[in-house]
């Protein structure tokens, strides 16, 4: 835990962590994002199911829209693939010296998987 650190905020922003730091930040942001999405969706579904409330239907309509699905698919696929990388490096720590290559492999898998899904979502949205 980094509690008790005395790094000023702007010095922290200038830290040149590179790819692994970007993955760490994206993992946290996407994790909190998924939790927020799932929590809001569960509550909205509850109120939609039990009392058909207008704001719940509005939230779930946003969640069904194609532009929101592009975001959700991005954060879920990234969180899953990055989690697999963390898991693999935890099981085989002798490969930690190749962690930057593991990161490249992760993005190499991510780009076609997400690109294909995004292509079909956008294509269907544009076709109406």
């Amino acid at each position: 835990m980094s509690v008790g650190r005395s790094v000023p905020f702007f010095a922290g922003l200038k830290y040149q962590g590179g790819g692994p730091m970007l993955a760490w930040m994206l993992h946290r942001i996407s994790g909190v994002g998924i939790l927020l999405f799932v929590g809001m969706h569960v509550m909205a579904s509850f109120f939609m199911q039990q009392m058909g409330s207008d704001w719940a239907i509005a939230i779930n309509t946003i969640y069904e829209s194609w532009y929101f699905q592009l975001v959700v698919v991005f954060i879920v696929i990234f969180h899953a693939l990055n989690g697999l990388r963390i898991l693999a490096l935890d099981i085989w720590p002798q490969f930690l010296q190749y962690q930057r290559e593991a990161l490249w492999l992760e993005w190499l898998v991510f780009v076609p998987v997400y690109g294909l899904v995004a292509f079909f979502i956008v294509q269907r949205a544009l076709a109406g």
Partner: protein
Amino acid sequence: MYSRAVHPGLTFEYLMWLFTRISAIALLTLAAVGMIAAFILGARTQMDLPTLMRWTFFPNPNHVISSAIPDITLGWANGFWQVMQILFVTFGLTHGFNGLRIVAEDFFAHSFLRPMMRGLVFFLWMFMLLIAIYVILSS
């Protein structure tokens, strides 16, 4: 690089670290089962990709109700998928709220605020779990 034997002991942090890994594998397995079953049930000709993604993330019959499936009671809405959904939310919410606790602890010093934050996360976890299971069993 050399390795040395580490004996972490059964602390709460170690158990949650282990649970995060195990639940991650469980969630990916559940998603794979959902997607493969959807294709066996005829997803290729009966639904579009966003609908398949929604079913994969969470196999709720309400997620496929607007597709071209003629009758969702044939295979898509039954007790098996309710059990799958309960497993999904239990693993998912526990994984997620433990992650939220870990993220939040980086922003809380060792003061009275930390146990209060932990209590809030625990309360939210129980609350969301109950609501989610209620929604699953009544949908």
